[in-house]
């Protein structure tokens, strides 16, 4: 389909200053395309939480956003270390973030719950030692 727009970004582990740049760029592109502010905000927040997770918890990877006529998909894929218990990781308040991350304003264990709250569909797959794959969908 020619009217599908795909955006791809590398996510660098540990770079807290740059964290969120990809989400910020997606937000700008969605505004340029003329997507409604409500959909943009939900997409931006969900992706930002996921991007922050990749920066804080993972060994890095990529984010791929596709804009279809009726939905936006956000795919976040990283190269490990993976999550042992996905169900536990997704519960509100669960976190393995160290105190120095909390001092930066993250690590309240609300990332996954927020991502779920703002998207219409979310699938998290993870293999310890291999990596984590988060797929989210926001209806337009």
């Amino acid at each position: 389909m020619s009217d599908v727009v795909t955006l791809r970004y590398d996510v660098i582990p540990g770079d807290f200053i740059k964290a969120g740049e990809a989400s910020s760029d997606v937000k700008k592109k969605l505004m340029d395309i003329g997507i409604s502010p409500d959909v943009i905000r939900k997409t931006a927040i969900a992706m930002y939480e996921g991007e922050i997770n990749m920066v804080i918890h993972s060994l890095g990877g990529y984010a791929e956003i596709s804009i279809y006529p009726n939905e936006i998909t956000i795919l976040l894929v990283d190269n490990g270390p993976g999550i042992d218990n996905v169900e536990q990781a997704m519960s509100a308040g669960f976190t393995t973030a160290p105190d120095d991350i909390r001092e930066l304003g993250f690590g309240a264990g609300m990332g996954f719950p927020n991502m779920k709250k703002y998207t219409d569909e979310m699938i998290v797959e993870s293999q310890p030692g291999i990596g984590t794959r988060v797929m989210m969908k926001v209806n337009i």
Partner: protein
Amino acid sequence: MTIRDVMDALGARLITGEEWLEREVHVACGSDMMSDVLAFLKDQSVLLTGLCNPQVIRTAEMMDIICIVFVRGKYPDETIIEMAKERGIVLLASGHRMFSACGKLYEKGLRGGAPYR
């Protein structure tokens, strides 16, 4: 109330965004945890925080927050101010602690959102 009213109520100092002072603020949110802020979706809100790093601006950007008040005398560096400028976000600095700053705005009629869940 307008951003200028927020500034006056707190006796806050304007860091950047003079051209946006007449914008209306509808609700406020006070937190040092950005995920708490990200759980709060409201239009035209003001964020009070004691956290002072680039992710505060990013969080505000994702949420379409129009004004950030740094409490407890926190003052952002040039990079942070520049990021806010680019995004049209007003930055204010207040010497008040979080509780007092929120209280002063509440007294003037500004409210938070509904209770969580």
